[in-house]
């Protein structure tokens, strides 16, 4: 049995009266790439933010790298965050700094390395994501794919043990998206990091995943290897993976009390 890097233990998260995640249990094993799939509003991004410590759970706990996130004080949380990297949906580069300054910021903030060493490390990280010649550009001069790659270079600047990806291929063309996927797989191999990827792009999910889970209405429906998922006979999984227009997901949407709604509107 491989060792878990992250253990999600019965985590519940509510926003107001809406329960976004309902007693979720999940293990992420060391060195694997786990893909979390789910439709919009299924709670997958929230799950990622819980694991990266950006959001606090309302119930349950997450044990990551051997420590309970809910019990961490500010100092421990800061220490934990230096061991993880997050790639945000938009790349989230700091717009007032160049690409190289963005990548170097965590190093300047958290290490006492001399400037020359930092410059070299920044160049290495930028080379890894293929952006070395764009080091002096401002984020506004980069394309969407380049922004994500720069964001990735910044996320790995402190050599994290876990990388979280929030929709890495959202809004990218198929080729750029495939490049990012390749990069995720390369980093996984070269740096030996554990990766958690949240996505709803099926092509990308099947390319990179060692294991995948499907999240629906705040609960896990199924988990398994890409092959197991493809051969699943769960109708919801089939509809989601193959993008079918008929199935339980659309059924549910249609099931709303349409007639009541219409008549209610007429009388009220």
């Amino acid at each position, binding site marked *: 049995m491989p060792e878990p890097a992250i253990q999600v233990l019965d985590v519940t998260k509510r926003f107001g009266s809406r329960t976004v995640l309902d007693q979720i249990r999940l293990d992420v094993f060391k060195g694997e790439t786990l893909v979390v799939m789910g439709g919009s509003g299924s709670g997958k991004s929230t799950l990622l933010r819980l694991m990266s410590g950006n959001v606090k759970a309302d119930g349950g706990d997450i044990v990551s790298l051997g420590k309970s996130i809910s019990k961490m004080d500010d100092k421990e949380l800061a220490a934990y*965050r*230096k061991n993880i990297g997050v790639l*945000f949906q938009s790349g*989230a580069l*700091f717009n007032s700094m160049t690409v190289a300054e963005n990548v170097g*910021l*965590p190093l300047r*903030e958290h290490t006492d390395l001399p400037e020359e060493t930092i410059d070299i490390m920044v160049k290495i990280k930028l080379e890894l994501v293929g952006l070395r010649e764009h080091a002096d550009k401002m984020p506004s001069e980069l394309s969407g794919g380049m922004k994500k790659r720069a964001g990735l270079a910044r996320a790995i600047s402190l050599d994290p043990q876990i990388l979280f990806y929030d929709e890495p291929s959202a809004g990218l063309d198929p080729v750029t998206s495939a490049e990012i996927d390749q990069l995720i797989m390369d980093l996984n191999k070269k740096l030996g990091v554990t990766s958690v990827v949240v996505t709803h792009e099926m092509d990308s999910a099947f390319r990179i995943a060692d294991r995948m889970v499907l999240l629906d209405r705040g609960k896990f429906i199924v988990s398994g290897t890409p092959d197991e998922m493809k051969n699943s006979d769960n109708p919801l999984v089939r509809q989601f993976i193959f993008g079918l227009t008929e199935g339980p997901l659309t059924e549910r949407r249609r099931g709303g009390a349409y007639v009541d709604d219409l008549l209610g509107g007429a009388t009220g």
Partner: protein
Amino acid sequence: MIGATSPIRFVRGILEFIGGLTQLLLAAAVAMPRALLSKRGRRLGWANLWAQMDRVGVKSIPIVVLVLFCIGAILALQMAPVLREYGKMDSVADVISVAVFRELGPLISAIVLTGFAGASIAAEMGTMVVSEEIEALEAHAISPIRFLVVPRVLATTVMMTCLGVVGDVAGVAGGLTVSSVFLGTGAQQYWNHTFEILKLRDFITGLLKAGVFGSLIAGLACYLGLGVTGGAEGVGSATTRTVVYTIVALIAVDLLFTSVFYYLGF
């Protein structure tokens, strides 16, 4: 927040707002020494601070000079007919210098800076929230308070104090110009009157207020900017609210300070 329905909720909203703002400013004050004096803080802290001082203060000097010069001139023209009736034309200088140094220099400079720096800080912070930059800072274990709020509050406080001095001088210059060119008071006489009437405490109380105004402008802008929700629309509304709330807060704090100074006999 503000604008709720019942009076109780309205008052509670205001108190919560003031509480949140105070918390932010206290957190910034606590983070300040480490941000500027620690070894790693020095690497980015000072560069950051200079950049903010330039952006907040240096670029607003011409506008402050222009506005305060005009205010001084307007005051001279408004006072002249009344004072002439009493044969006290020389006192134009007295009225203007006290009004400008104690009150109008700091206050008008602060209002200019609200539009100049407050709005831009709020929009900047709001945009950073929307583009996930704040979350990214936190994910890198970099405190947005230390990294963003401290340099902005400190830069605005320091620059507001400097702008207060600039504003004072510009206001007196405006009054002097109008008095000597249009009202026939000699420039030398005006100058002498100004120095006779002004006391060090007029200058100090004015600058003290200016410093507090500076913290208030940046504090409110950061607080409202960091609280943005809901995309570009949220940024726009936060910017507008920053300008409106700041001007109201400036006047309220000014009243508070002026009453305290009055009772203390300053």
